[in-house]
């Protein structure tokens, strides 16, 4: 008999994913490095000094500034995002197809560019309410996207049953419609909270002092590492609180559908005489969120446009931004593979716990990641790697790792193990099956994961400012340098390129994720904004 017998390593059944597990654990260790070294640093600072730093008046002011902003912006975004989603998805408001597009695009504009646009048009604005206005306009789509998806897929029969049970239209909206979208609203709101916590650039431009702006100043300007560390601890704690509260608030409510009957498409509510008002409201939202920042950038370019040729440094910065984005995208996507593979193919309690541990990064703002990595390289690696390309890429990969995991997992779920088995049973070799079945099925999802991290990286400001190698400027750092000097018209072209890079493909990715299961919508929503945030699903 001239058959070949496979060696022991490739036998099914006896197969334990040892290599994968080792890789997944190693990746997780790297991802948790910022969190670990934040704690190490805090221990080194010592409790006496920490206490002194934590319980001073300034800290109280900063926490109040930050928390009140988070609360107000989150509340406004929840209301605006949900209402906008309801009008677009469930009413006969005119031009709803256009609004479905226009209302989402602001997500692609980096928050600090929105802030910059408003500041350029209205130089006198600043303070708490300006921060509320700008952040709400920049991030409400984080609520809009998941809620719109959830309203689209919700079963209209529930609303009809509520009406038949004697509930009025408004009570039906509150109890049934909002109830159906509750998980989506909550998920979006938590994302908004995490984004506001982590935001730095927008507040710095508006002159509004929060934990992040103070950490940045203590560290970059005052070189006061202990103070930066103490405030970072508070920031991470607040983020963790938000993450935990999501689990807590979500509760046990599930949107159950009994039976396999297909849900019908929801019927739209006729607005009647309220139509013009609804139209005006949505139009105002688009003007404020999209028109103002984009208009400001264009008017700045036109005003300052003596030379029609963009400066050479714009091309160099664009090239650097693309290079960093691509590197971070590749690293994060590859690093996410072992954990995503384990969680799809070998879902066991230990694996799922490992996956959740990686989601902790969501609570760590990019600024804190950057500070922690700086501390690590200075104190433990004799400043090797400090301000180098690889360290910046690693920082990006860590910040956007949860995003990569969720997208890669969705990609792998598209190629179930059963397909590989069928392929092999047809007499095709394992490697050939991988190449002909698994790779083509998984590739689009992996490309999406790459694109998400790329977009995030391209519009990242804070960690880039702290960690970018001297002399290597990106769009974000150049923009920041010019706007810090008050050279708004010189900063504008950089802002424009960032908007173009992020908004257009970001919008397309958003639509792509819209067609994925609900969990992915939040990933998509997080992706098209300039944030490291993504709620642990």
């Amino acid at each position, binding site marked *: *008999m001239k058959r070949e*017998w496979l060696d022991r390593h490739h036998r099914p059944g006896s197969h334990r994913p040892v290599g994968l597990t080792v890789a997944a654990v190693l990746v997780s260790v790297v991802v948790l490095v910022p969190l670990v070294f934040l704690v190490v640093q805090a221990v080194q600072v010592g409790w006496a000094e920490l206490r002194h730093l934590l319980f001073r008046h300034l800290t109280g002011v900063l926490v109040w500034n930050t928390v009140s902003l988070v609360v107000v912006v989150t509340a406004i975004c929840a209301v605006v995002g949900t209402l906008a989603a309801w009008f677009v998805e469930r009413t006969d408001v005119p031009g709803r197809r256009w609004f479905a597009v226009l209302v989402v695009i602001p997500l692609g504009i980096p928050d600090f560019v929105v802030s910059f646009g408003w500041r350029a048009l209205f130089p006198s604005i600043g303070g708490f309410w300006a921060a509320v206005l700008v952040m709400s306009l920049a991030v409400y789509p984080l609520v809009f996207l998941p809620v719109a998806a959830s309203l689209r897929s919700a079963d209209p029969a529930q609303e009809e049953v509520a009406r038949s049970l004697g509930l009025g239209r408004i009570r039906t909206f509150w109890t049934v419609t909002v109830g159906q979208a509750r998980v989506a609203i909550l998920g979006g709101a938590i994302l908004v909270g995490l984004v506001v916590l982590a935001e730095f650039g927008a507040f710095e431009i508006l002159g509004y002092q929060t934990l992040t702006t103070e950490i940045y100043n203590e560290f970059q300007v005052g070189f006061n590492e202990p103070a930066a560390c103490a405030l970072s601890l508070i920031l991470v704690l607040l983020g963790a609180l938000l993450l935990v509260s999501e689990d807590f608030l979500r509760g046990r409510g599930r949107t159950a559908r009994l039976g396999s009957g297909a849900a019908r498409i929801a019927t739209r509510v006729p607005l009647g005489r309220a139509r013009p008002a609804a139209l005006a409201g949505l139009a105002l939202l688009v003007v404020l969120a999209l028109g103002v920042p984009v208009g400001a950038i264009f008017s700045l370019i036109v005003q300052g446009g003596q030379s029609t040729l963009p400066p050479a440094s714009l091309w160099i910065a664009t090239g650097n931004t693309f290079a960093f984005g691509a590197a971070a995208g590749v690293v994060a996507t590859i690093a996410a593979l072992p954990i995503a593979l384990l969680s799809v193919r070998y879902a066991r309690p230990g694996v799922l716990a490992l996956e959740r541990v990686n989601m902790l990064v969501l609570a760590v703002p990019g600024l804190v990641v950057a500070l922690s990595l700086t501390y690590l390289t200075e104190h433990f690696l004799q400043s090797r790697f400090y301000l180098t390309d690889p360290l910046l890429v690693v920082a990006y990969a860590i910040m956007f790792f949860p995003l990569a995991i969720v997208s890669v997992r969705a990609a792998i779920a598209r190629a179930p193990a059963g397909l590989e088995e069928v392929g*092999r*049973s047809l*007499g095709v*070799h394992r490697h050939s099956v991988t190449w002909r079945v698994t790779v083509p099925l998984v590739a689009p999802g992996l490309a999406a994961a790459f694109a998400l991290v790329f977009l995030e990286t391209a519009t990242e400001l804070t960690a880039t400012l702290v960690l970018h190698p001297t002399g290597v400027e990106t769009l974000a750092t150049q923009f920041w340098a010019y706007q810090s000097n008050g050279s708004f018209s010189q900063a504008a072209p950089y802002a424009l390129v960032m908007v173009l890079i992020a908004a257009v493909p970001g919008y397309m990715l958003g639509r792509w994720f819209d067609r994925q299961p609900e969990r992915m919508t939040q990933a998509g929503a997080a992706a098209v904004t300039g944030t490291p945030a993504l709620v642990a699903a």
Partner: protein
Amino acid sequence: MRGLAVKGVTKAFGPQEVLRGVDLVVPDGSFTAILGASGSGKTTLLRIVAGFERPDRGEVWLGDELVDDAGSRYLACERRRIGYVPQEGALFPHLSVGRNVGFGLSRQATRRPRVDELLELVGLSGYRRRYPHQLSGGQQQRVALARALAIEPEVVLLDEPFSSLDAALRASVRADVLGVLRQAGTTSVLVTHDQDEALSMADQVAVLRDGVVAQLDTPAALYRHPGDAGVAQFLGEANLIEGEVRDGVATTILGRLPVGGWTGPPSGQARVMVRPEQIELGEVGEGIDGVVASYEYYGHDAVVRIRLERMGVPEPGAPELVVRITGGPPVVAGHRVGLSVRGPVVAWPVRHNKQENSPE
């Protein structure tokens, strides 16, 4: 074509024993159904035969070739030439129908004509360029079958291939698949939890229960002479009553009934099975007295549930009997009837020290 044999196969997942010594011989060119409740290990058995899983102990033979001995001998699944048709078809979603069917064919070989030939065999000639999502469930299932047959397999394994189809479609797809497999002449193994499917399609049926083959027989023999009450109840409805057997006749509350194939001692306590269609309804006074408890009309037949009576008083401890009648006027609940049993019944000796296995 080659037959298939499984000898003493066991398999546990962690502490859970799924297969506990399965023996099964599938003759060359036959169609065998493995019938079991969900969780009985039938899919695991199929996966072991296909080579996707390995047994903890036991042997798997393809013809006269030992392909897995639970030890060092293991033939990889891609070398077994076993066609596998999984639940829901599992077509490659990114490939057209033609490419799905041709997946296992080598590039140089006469791929295109072979694919066309196979698509014609399953009645989907014009569908080569379509994609799986453009097909109905039944069409997907037939493409999956064509894909499995493309490699000219020695054995075809079908893992509940019809369970995702709705009832109307199921019967026709079943008939199509059976026709194609007969024409191809392959040895076929079907796993199912649907006894109608097993009985109507297979040459022989293996009832898998508690990780072992409880009985292996032709459909008719299995239905008429189930090895125990559990198997009897699993294969259609069965009335189980107590009785005493002597000289090939069981004395029961339904009267003295001839027993076929009695294996117990010449006389003794027995459990007697009467199929619903063996009971005939007549006028009161003809045979045993009973009263109609309920009547369910199905068009082609009707199911009547009867409580036994003696002199107008419900018989204590008597089970409700299920009777299947075809034609005749509708019966009303509360109506008094007479019962008689047609043909020989099946009986098993009651072993007092051992509990009867019941189906899951």
